[in-house]
């Protein structure tokens, strides 16, 4: 498990931004703001794969993060692709962009501070400021291969990878070919390869070119990117289930011009969000989110994809990280920025500002029994925004000398109890533990006898 949040600079920017946003808000709008304090990152989930899919019409740019941890010479990747890819359609990506996307879209924790009940602040009535804009700077075929029915359609090197694009006639031939060429593929692969072959999929096979890798500056393998046109808007997951034990986590960042992306052959469900949590959750935020996710996953019978974030990429509120710059978006595969062709629907405003990209972050935890089909998606016109956001409300702990203080204390006690019960129901944590960890505002006292109300005594 890895936490990479509390970089002081990042936190400071986020805080400044949150302050800037809050100052201009009317009290009723405060619910949509807050001080950003923490986020989770995709590395939290063991073996979470990350994929970026950028799509407009049939044009698709697929980026697969490489989280491979073993020796580079043992690395191999086989991905079914719907079209025949040529050399210039494949590229290596920048791992930093994936991390940026992750940070930007991750579930987040925000905090508010109660004001002194004895000196309530005057309501602010300034109009809501414009959304926070970040700076927007701008072959040869061997005889044996033929007998196996496997054709090497293309063979090239990109960055530290040697790539083969294979087509095959029979899955057993492909399995044999892969074994003969020292790809360690799991048993039973041919049964899963067969449907792809019969649908005329090609196979994208990548290995690490050790000389290039050692000569390169990067210590880690970079993401692989491919650009193609296909009416199929899908992600093959069946092959990946062969060699994995149990459930796997997949985080998919889908970027379109229109709006949200949803699954068409599974339900897309929002993760539980927008509720108050006890103060101690700040120290245990990753554990909290994991528990909440697992609970939601089980409640939905382990057969849905979860929506973790949906937002117009021009802004964020509160920002877990700054929105991606146009340059970073291009690195993520957003190909229409700066496009001036006739088919452009919404022109990009000059000098930065709104950027024509909408992100959907889906988190799919899948196992073989509940996810028999590959993931199929569709782009919708849905531009509703959504984020995983959890709120800490800090009680005012300073000196209070007024009649309102007693009421305030009682309110905060009630609030803390509500937060505790909600936390227990969302995470499944033990009630005793949760109640023990809470810094109760006033010492738990005996219930107020009913007759005191009758006599109107304090």
């Amino acid at each position, binding site marked *: 498990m890895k936490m990479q949040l509390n970089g002081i600079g990042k936190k400071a920017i986020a805080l400044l931004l949150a302050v800037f946003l809050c100052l201009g808000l009317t009290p009723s709008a405060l619910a949509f703001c807050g001080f950003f304090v923490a986020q989770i990152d995709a590395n939290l989930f063991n073996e979470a794969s990350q994929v970026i899919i950028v799509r407009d019409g049939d044009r698709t740019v697929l980026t697969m993060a490489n989280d491979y941890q073993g020796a580079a010479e043992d690395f191999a990747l086989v991905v079914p692709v719907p079209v025949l890819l040529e050399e210039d359609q494949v590229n290596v990506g920048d791992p930093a962009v994936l991390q940026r996307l992750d940070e930007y879209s991750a579930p987040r924790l925000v905090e508010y501070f109660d004001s002194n009940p004895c000196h309530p602040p005057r309501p602010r009535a300034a109009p809501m400021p414009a959304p926070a804009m970040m700076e927007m700077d701008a072959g040869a075929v061997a005889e044996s291969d033929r007998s196996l029915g496997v054709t090497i359609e293309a063979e090239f090197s990109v960055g530290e990878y040697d790539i083969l694009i294979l087509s095959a006639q029979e899955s057993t031939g492909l399995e044999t070919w892969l074994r003969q060429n020292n790809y360690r593929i799991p048993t039973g692969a041919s*049964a899963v390869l067969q449907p792809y072959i*019969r649908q005329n999929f090609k196979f994208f096979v990548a290995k690490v070119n050790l000389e290039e890798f050692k000569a390169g500056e990067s210590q880690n393998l970079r993401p692989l990117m491919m650009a193609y046109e296909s009416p199929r808007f899908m992600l093959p997951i069946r092959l990946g289930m062969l060699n994995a034990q149990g459930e796997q986590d997949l985080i998919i960042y889908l970027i379109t011009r229109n709006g949200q992306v949803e699954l068409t052959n599974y339900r897309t469900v929002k993760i539980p969000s927008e509720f108050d949590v006890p103060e101690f959750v700040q120290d245990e935020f990753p554990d909290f989110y994991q528990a909440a996710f697992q609970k939601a996953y089980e409640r939905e019978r382990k*057969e849905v994809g979860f929506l973790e974030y949906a937002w117009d990429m021009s802004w964020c509120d509160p920002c877990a990280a700054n929105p991606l710059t146009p340059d970073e978006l291009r690195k993520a595969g957003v190909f229409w920025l700066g496009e001036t062709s006739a088919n452009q629907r919404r022109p990009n405003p000059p000098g930065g500002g709104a950027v024509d990209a909408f992100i959907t972050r889906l988190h799919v935890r899948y196992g073989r029994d509940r996810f028999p089909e590959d993931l199929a998606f569709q782009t919708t016109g849905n531009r509703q925004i959504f984020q995983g956001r959890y709120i800490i409300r800090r009680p005012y702990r300073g000196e209070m000398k007024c009649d309102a203080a007693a009421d305030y204390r009682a309110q905060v006690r009630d609030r803390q109890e509500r937060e505790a019960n909600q936390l227990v129901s969302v995470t499944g944590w033990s009630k005793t533990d949760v109640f023990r960890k809470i810094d109760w505002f006033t010492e738990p006292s005996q219930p107020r006898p009913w007759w005191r109300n009758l006599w109107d005594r304090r």
Partner: protein
Amino acid sequence: MVKDARIAQIGFLLLFLLLGLSSRDWTIRPELLATVGISCLGTQWLTRNLIPRWRGQGAGPWWGVPGWQSAVITALGLCLLLRGNHAGTMALAGSGAIASKSLFRIQDKHFFNPANFGIILALVLTPDAWVSPGQWGTQAWYFLLFIAAGGIVLRWVGRWDTSMVFLGTYGALEAIRTVLLGWTVDVYFHKLMSGSLLLFALFMVTDPRSIPNAKQARWIWAGAIAWLTFLLQEQLFISTGMFWALFFLAPLTPLLDFLWSAPRFTWQSLGRGFSLKPLN
């Protein structure tokens, strides 16, 4: 005792809508649902009361909405299926759906399924409309509920055969595809257990007023829609293929009615044994 099959259908559709809203994580805005309801009933009133009255054919009170049951069924169908960002989109779908019954008529019978027509209209003419085929998931509980509810209504109106031919043909085509491609059987069942597919088969393809009258004609028609749905979904990868298939093949209804003549369906004909007022 419910005396009109349409009232039973309204009850079931309402139940599905409430179930979807409460347990399927749908984020439907109430004002959009209201827009659909008002536009459907308003257009029904316009086309069935005001315009006939203006032509001197009207009867009954000026505020009456003749055939309101059909308009409510269409509105509920749209609420269950169509999603959009703006009220204008939903109003276009609602009023277009009802207006299609008056605009596209051959021999005094409309041939587009109104809700389906409204959906296609919104998908084609607006940028923000969509349909979510995955919204029901594939849970067995819903499968049984839809089958049971659909069974009651369809037995009543005598169109059970149409659903069966549609599902049978589609299921057979998917089975052939699964075998040919070598997918495992759970892939097949996952496809067929889709709640959206079932709702379409039981509540949309079977609208007795717009589909062919004769049994043989209905079988050919339902089979053709299943085949086109399969083609659009599996060959052209259009996830909303079933709605397009019904839209494109709906104009075949008058032709099939011409080839196989049979008494036209009326809701009143179901009321034998009950005392029913004429509704439309």
